[in-house]
């Protein structure tokens, strides 16, 4: 399996066009587990990391239908390929930058992925759309149960599953919902959301990019605690808060439409015009423009553009996706900002 084959498709989980797709991009649950008698990754020698990777691979071979999974050793991949996987959320940025032997296996539909030797020995994740919430947790739980039947995980009766960072100890479970909240961001309401989330032990981070939360108005809401509650309770906490945020975002969108329709229309259409006319676009700028267009589409101010197309743009305008699409070649006097501008123009004119 070549990584470039993945280019042909948008990641399945971004094809969400169902209920709440106007705000919810996707949901994710991940579990952290470690194997006894191996040091945690930060204290692991190269030799041990190789031993652990092959130990885990052998167990995964017994549990996963490998003909439906890809398996990559990260050490064999180029810098561009590593970032490409990270841009598709199949591996984390930490996994890209890590040391020692690291690998990843992910299902062909890119919904399930297992990182080996990330911060913990094993990080299993499932990414899913709103209507798959129940079944996705069940599938992940089945997978971890099958693995646990053939391999022990580091566990303490009081502290639960032991992880490299105590912020993940206990269940090792982090559930996140990725949200597009342009109206709340534009009207400076995010502070209220932070406070509300804080009250129920949830954390809000930026979904794309680092350095600022909410670049392009995309956020993720996750559980802050992993210990002291069971897995279902942790999932339910996030599930119960998200509808309130959706309601708030929608009510602000409606208010903005009523009181300031002209300005909102101009904001969204200007973004579409910029994308069609600008010859160079930075990644940060692309997120800002795609966010405005996404808002315009959801408010029915911009016709004939699907959410799926915008979601595709959100992933494919990342640096390494552009590099893969051009096989790394830049023409004379060409920049990646020009390639990005051209990609976005094609996306919205075709």
């Amino acid at each position, binding site marked *: 399996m070549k990584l470039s084959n993945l280019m042909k498709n948008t990641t399945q989980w971004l094809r969400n066009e169902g209920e709440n797709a106007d705000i919810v991009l996707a949901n994710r649950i991940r579990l952290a587990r470690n194997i006894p008698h191996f040091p945690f990754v930060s204290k692991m020698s190269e030799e041990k990391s190789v031993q652990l990777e092959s130990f885990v691979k052998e167990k995964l071979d017994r549990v996963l239908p490998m003909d439906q999974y890809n398996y990559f050793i990260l050490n064999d991949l180029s810098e561009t390929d590593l970032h490409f996987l990270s841009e598709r959320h199949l591996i984390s940025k930490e996994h890209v930058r890590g040391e020692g032997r690291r690998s990843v296996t992910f299902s062909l539909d890119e919904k399930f992925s297992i990182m080996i030797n990330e911060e913990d020995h094993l990080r299993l994740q499932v990414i899913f759309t709103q209507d798959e919430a129940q079944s996705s947790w069940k599938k992940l739980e089945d997978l971890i149960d099958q693995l646990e039947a053939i391999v*022990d*995980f580091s566990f*303490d009766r009081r502290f639960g599953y032991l992880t490299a960072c105590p912020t993940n100890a206990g269940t090792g479970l982090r559930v996140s919902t990725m949200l597009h909240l342009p109206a709340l961001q534009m009207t400076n309401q995010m502070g209220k959301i932070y406070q509300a989330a*804080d009250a129920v032990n949830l954390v809000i981070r930026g979904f794309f990019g680092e350095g600022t*939360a909410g670049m392009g108005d995309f956020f993720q809401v996750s559980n802050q605690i992993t210990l002291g509650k069971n897995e279902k309770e942790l999932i339910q906490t996030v599930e119960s808060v998200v509808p309130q945020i959706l309601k708030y975002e929608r009510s602000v969108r409606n208010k903005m439409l009523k009181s300031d329709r002209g300005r909102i229309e101009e904001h969204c259409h200007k973004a579409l015009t910029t994308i069609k006319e600008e010859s160079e676009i930075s990644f940060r700028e692309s997120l800002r423009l795609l966010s405005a267009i996404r808002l315009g589409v959801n408010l029915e101010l911009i016709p004939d553009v699907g959410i799926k197309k915008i979601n595709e743009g959100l992933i494919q305008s990342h640096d390494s996706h552009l590099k893969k699409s051009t096989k790394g070649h830049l023409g004379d006097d060409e920049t990646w900002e020009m390639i990005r501008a051209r990609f976005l123009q094609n996306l919205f004119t075709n």
Partner: protein
Amino acid sequence: MKCEKCNKEATVFFTEIKQDEKKEIHLCAKCAESYQNYIADPHITHSISDFLGGLLQIFASKEQTELKETSKDVCSDCGMSIHEFHASGRLGCERDYRVFRSDIKDLLLKIHGKSRHRGKVPHSLQKWKDLVDLRKRLNSVINQEKYEEAAEIRDKIKQLESAHEA
């Protein structure tokens, strides 16, 4: 985890990258809002790292002083010391959870508000977990004076205990 600006519970996390060095910034909701406004302000020309660096240094030096007084332990398996753990926030191996048990228990309590796991357990400990849950329920129904239910739970406990011993 405490807010690096005001020491309240931190709920918002920023990752700052400067010259390829990654730094996590932990802030409470209120400070996060002013931080966002701060970085969004185009008139501010000096670096965010300078601004937060000062705060982090104050925080780190305060924490180090506290550590010197609490523990000198080092894990014989992975070589992790309590100082190293507090500086990096990460443990070196599963044994560290035993070596630094009391520090970790306090830390887990600070992070999660609780230090006792309530979730899934390995298959081999499922009966043990069922017993723990039943005993907890027994105490609760006795407090509510539901004695019939208490008798039923007591029978279940006996059954499980005898199966466990067998």
